[in-house]
């Protein structure tokens, strides 16, 4: 939550400009290291186990690599450890052809057995991949995955799993509890150096398979117990890459050195929705949900609540991550994500939620039409979004109260279905399959009182089930595209949730010491430091001459 939890206090520190010299040197002659802050870890533990949910930063970015990388900024797929892959005709298997020139950082070659071991460990330790029947090494550099059912999103899920060396990991007695403090990986910067609780360095992998792309001397991670310290470091010019939330970034950060400092927030994060608990009578009617959606002013939400860092949502509910799938006809056709208070009021009148003489609306049962909007108290940006929604609703006679306890309490309410409305993130994967499944498939609906970790709003449509199943079973691209269009039409008809805006992928940098960053014109990756695309940035940056 720290990412979204904006604290304005740093603004006070940033009032005056203060450029400073480069970060302290690396002690090596190679020049400064690429310095990156990590704002939500007060201290680091030397844990480079990629199966651990809280491994040290950069473990799955610069030490271990995956077979392919999906880049949401441009919608393209980059072959990485695998040079190619072929799904079978029947859709029940996929073959990955590994590159033959890849070596682990201890000099051993990458082989298909490493892939097999990785998936064994992943399934044993963390579960998932239920559709996977077997993983086999056909030969040294070919891995064959077979499925027990057709599941087209599998390609990206399998391809983006980071691979670990079998010759190391098969030796570990308890791989789940292994701290792996001296990791052996295929990534560009694998050599851990000077590990301290407050910082550590990653130096170049001597055996890297793309030596021409290791242009920077190394990576240095700094630990911060909150956004303020990390923002101060960025504003002061002590770090090269700032992936954390920064309030009013233009004046606090960029204006200090407009020549070198830049930011880019592509709207490719998870879609942020206002979820209405559809088990409640007042939210069971799609027209009511659409009316509430039309009552809110998304321009204001994005400009004021989100500091203009993102864009308003449309009727497909898809974030910028899914631009290739977006059906422009659906977008053009629908009006329920446009701000139109009069139409919203008319729609509510038709649905029986009429206004009394005091202007306050009542439900058809005669109860006041009033509810809470739950948001965690630390997310100040989402809190202001919720307040704008409440104001907008007030204009059409609907009484919404913003309720902001601790996130843990809010989420506990979401999970058991004991909430009225709330602002919630959503799934973000290479295809919109998981997103739509979590939002409108009956499979993901649990009764109120039973814990669920997706579909908090508890909405399911059998039509959506059928389309999702068909999508999972087809590997042909045109057919997938058609099914996804139908899902978007269905979403637009049903309005299962009220989409607000795509989450922006935060990222700011300075070209004072390194150049070659991804930009809007050259979106070869996002500026995220915890995404699969991070390694693309690490292998593109070069020091300033």
């Amino acid at each position, binding site marked *: 939550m720290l990412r979204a939890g904006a604290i304005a*206090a740093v603004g006070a520190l940033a009032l005056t400009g203060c450029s400073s010299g480069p970060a302290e040197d690396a002690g090596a002659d190679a020049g400064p290291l690429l310095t990156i802050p990590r704002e939500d870890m*007060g201290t680091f533990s030397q844990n480079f186990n990629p199966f651990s949910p809280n491994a040290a930063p950069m473990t799955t970015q610069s030490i271990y690599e995956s077979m392919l990388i999906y880049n949401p900024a441009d919608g393209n797929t980059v072959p990485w450890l695998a040079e190619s892959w072929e799904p079978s005709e029947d859709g029940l298997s996929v073959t990955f052809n590994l590159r033959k020139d890849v070596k682990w950082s201890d000099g051993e070659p990458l082989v298909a057995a490493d892939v097999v071991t990785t998936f064994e460990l992943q399934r044993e330790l963390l579960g998932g991949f239920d559709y996977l029947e077997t993983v086999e090494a056909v030969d040294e550099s070919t891995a064959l995955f077979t499925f027990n059912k057709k599941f087209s999103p599998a390609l990206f899920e399998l391809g983006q799993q980071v691979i670990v060396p079998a010759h190391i990991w098969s030796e570990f007695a308890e791989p789940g509890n292994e701290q792996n403090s001296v990791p052996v990986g295929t990534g560009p910067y694998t050599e851990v150096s000077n590990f301290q609780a407050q910082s550590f360095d990653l130096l170049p992998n001597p055996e890297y398979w793309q030596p021409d792309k290791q242009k920077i001397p190394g990576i240095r991670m700094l630990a911060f117990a909150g956004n303020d310290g990390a923002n101060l470091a960025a504003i002061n010019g002590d770090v090269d890459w700032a992936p954390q939330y920064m309030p009013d970034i233009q004046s606090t950060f960029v204006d200090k050195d407009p020549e070198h400092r830049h930011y880019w927030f592509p709207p490719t994060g998870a879609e942020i929705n206002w979820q209405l608990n559809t088990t409640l009578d007042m939210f069971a009617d799609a027209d009511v949900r659409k009316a509430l959606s039309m009552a809110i002013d998304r321009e204001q939400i994005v400009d004021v609540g989100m500091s203009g860092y993102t864009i308003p949502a449309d009727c497909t509910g898809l974030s910028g991550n899914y631009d290739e799938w977006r059906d422009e006809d659906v977008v053009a056709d629908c009006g329920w994500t446009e701000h139109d208070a009069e139409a919203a009021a008319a729609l509510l009148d038709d649905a029986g939620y009429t206004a009394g003489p005091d202007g306050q609306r009542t439900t058809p049962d005669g109860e006041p039409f009033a509810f809470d909007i739950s948001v965690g108290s630390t997310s100040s940006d989402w809190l202001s979004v919720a307040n704008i929604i409440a104001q907008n609703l007030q204009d059409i006679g609907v009484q919404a109260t913003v309720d902001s306890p601790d996130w843990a309490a809010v989420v506990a309410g979401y999970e058991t279905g004991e909430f009225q409305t709330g602002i919630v993130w959503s799934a973000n994967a290479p295809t919109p399959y998981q997103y739509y499944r979590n939002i409108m498939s009956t499979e993901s609906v649990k009764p109120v009182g039973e814990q669920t970790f997706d579909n908090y709003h508890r909405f399911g449509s059998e039509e959506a089930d059928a389309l999702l199943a068909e999508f999972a079973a087809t590997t042909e691209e045109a057919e997938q595209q058609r099914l996804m269009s139908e899902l978007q039409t269905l979403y637009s008809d049903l309005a299962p949730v009220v989409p607000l805006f795509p989450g922006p992928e935060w990222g700011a940098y300075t070209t004072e010491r390194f150049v070659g960053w991804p930009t809007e014109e050259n979106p070869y990756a996002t500026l995220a430091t915890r995404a699969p695309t991070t390694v693309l940035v690490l292998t593109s940056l070069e020091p300033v001459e």
Partner: protein
Amino acid sequence: MGFILRRLGFYLIAFWASITLNFMLPRLMPGDPVTRMLSRSQQRLDPQQIESLQRLLGVEGGPWWQEYFGYLGRVLTGDFGVSISRFPTPVSDVIAAQLPWTLLLGGVSLVIAVIIGNLLGILAAWRRGGILDSVTPPLLVFIGSFPYFWLAMGALYVFGVTLGWSPLRHAFSVGMTPSWDLAFIADVASHVLLPALSIVLVSIGGWMLGMRNTMITTNAEDYILMAEAKGLRPRRIMFNYAARNALLPSVTNIGMSLGFIVGGALLTEVVFAYPGVGYQLLAAVQGLDYPLMQGLFLTITAAVLLANLLVDLVYVRLDPRVRVS
């Protein structure tokens, strides 16, 4: 001797009560560690993985009494288990990595605050109604009542950012390796100074006022009059007669503060990005990391009890009346 044995028995019971509370309280909080992790990661973890994660982290749970006795046994053998929020790092490693910095920061600020605060208190009470006595206490109390966060940020801004006198973050310069050579020690000292002084600034008022008030009472005692009548030098009377007797409540306070140092200084750690157990404790509570919480609480409890025991022992030495009763 009987006194000390009685005290020891009392400490044993207090220790048992507090480790039991340490066990119970975290478990009364809603939720469990894995769903906390899930909600923090905002769906970056796959819901299907929850059961496997629970198994991996060993939080499936059993009957509470089974957990409780297991916990007691582990506490006695010094095994705190594996941290959940820092999985798979053992709790003892997490604490051991942070504790030295917390002790350094807390110790330095406590020593400075105690020495300066008590000296100011002694002098203020000795010259009652003087400038020191009329200006300093209200001023220090005024500063002490500022929100610490604000004060620390202001100090960091003025002395760190604008004047550049102090480093902006961390316990030592990035790139250095801890060692006992002079350059490193000097570096650590320059990093600890501003955070420590910010704590001193807000805590010194309490020390000064406490000392001043006790001193005033002591100054009215007959033996002070007697000492003056004997013609002893004022300085000797001030320190050896008045201050020495006024020191007892301060010693109790020092003991308490010593114990609580171990709890860390959360806000200082956040503002100055200083390593320490305070932020670790916050993270453990937020993530419902039972083993780490238990480990940290236990460390704090043990430190507070130990400090109190020390104070009791020092009292026996300082105050003959304790020995007699």
